[in-house]
């Protein structure tokens, strides 16, 4: 079993127009910029991206947006320093935004990965973002119903990966990456280092190989 891809193009093969793409990262930390740049070059159409932030600058998510590949963004905090591509599209009415609280994004994606179509949470009760959602009380406390977010593809950035697809991360660049890897049908990981099989201590694996389909090394 060898999930290592010879190049980024192979790693991104078969991503269809209209796909739901889960993207790891928080700000630039852990953002799979090389995968996103290469995806933008392929100019897919009508993507839905699920990502905490909507990119900054002209790389990564910013590039995917400015190339016109994205129809809808599911984000908690789309606007960050330098999120010009996002803002331009949004203000021109060319991008649908589903604003979701950060923890709700994480839990909805994990739920997709866990075979849970929906769950209840306090978050967003009584707010605009909870409007129109089913409310149910448990022990007298109102909760909002949230549905899973299923990804077709997850694009993640890891530090090390082996040929089975086991991944480790660096510090807070871990963030959404292991969660996105759980929630998609196909997970593609860009890694800074390819580890020999067995070199990652089995106690220290953060994303077990079962969640990863393709691994590609990216020079930084």
């Amino acid at each position, binding site marked *: *079993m060898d999930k290592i891809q010879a190049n980024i193009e192979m790693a991104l093969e078969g991503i269809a127009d209209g796909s739901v793409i889960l993207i790891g990262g928080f700000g630039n930390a852990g953002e799979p910029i090389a995968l996103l740049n290469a995806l933008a070059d392929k100019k897919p159409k009508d993507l839905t991206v699920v990502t905490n932030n909507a990119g900054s600058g002209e790389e990564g998510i910013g590039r995917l947006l400015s190339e016109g590949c994205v129809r809808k963004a599911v984000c908690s905090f789309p606007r960050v320093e330098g999120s010009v591509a996002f803002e331009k599209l949004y203000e021109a009415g060319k991008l649908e935004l589903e604003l979701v609280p950060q923890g709700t994004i994480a839990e909805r994606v*994990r739920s*997709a*990965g*866990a*075979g*849970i179509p929906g769950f209840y949470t306090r978050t967003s009760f009584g707010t605009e973002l909870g409007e129109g959602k089913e409310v149910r009380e448990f022990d007298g406390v109102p909760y909002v119903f949230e549905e899973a977010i299923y990804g077709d593809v997850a694009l993640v950035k890891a530090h090390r990966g*082996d*040929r*089975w697809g*086991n991944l480790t991360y660096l510090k807070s660049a871990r963030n959404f990456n292991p969660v996105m890897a*759980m929630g998609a049908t196909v997970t593609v990981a860009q890694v800074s280092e390819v580890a020999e*099989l*067995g070199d990652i201590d*089995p*106690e220290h*694996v953060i994303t*077990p*190989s*079962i*969640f990863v389909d393709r691994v590609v090394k990216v020079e930084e």
Partner: protein
Amino acid sequence: MVQALTRDQMCWRVAHDFDEGTYVNLGVGLPLGVLAHSPADREIIYHSENGILGMEPLEESDEPDANLINAGKRPVKLMKGGSYFHHADSFLMIRGGHIDVCVLGAYEISEKGDLANWRLPKSKGAPAVGGAMDLAYGAKKLYVLTDHNAKDGSPKIVKECTLPLTGVTCVDRIFTDLAVIDVTDEGLLVREMIDGLEFDELQNRTGAPLRLANDWQSLSVPQLAEA
């Protein structure tokens, strides 16, 4: 007199059904025996519900480790590339459809693929279900590995299950000591039969209608030393 497969041969047959890179969970009981027959020519990644990916059987020379056990609480080893994780993540793998194939034992399987494998109502003592119900629905494919007939000769493959169910319409393929049978939308389809067995005899020993696949094959397994 046709020679039904031994239990080792049954396990061997299942083990050889998996392609390189398949993620497989083995239920306790007979299915765990599949591990010992995993072919050397391909990497198959065995998941254990208690938090292991990449388990392999202990060899004679290996010291058992009480901290490294399978779902049946027997010591195992870890392959290079294996990993450990906690129970919520382990069952996320199962329930979220990440496991390619799960192999479970059975008391009864219905022609629609209902499975009963966790409780005999007449048995004394407390019931136990373990991960069977999670596995029944969670894996991409559910295989059943079982003797074709119970000890009293009654069929395990039936029109309707009479025992408490583990899951409804969940079984994809049945491996017995006589045949390999797929559960399809058009009913039970025999893919393989052991040599010398007539289809009519197989049908007689089965409690639901069978069809023989046009491209059916011999269920042929080498003689094996007991594992």
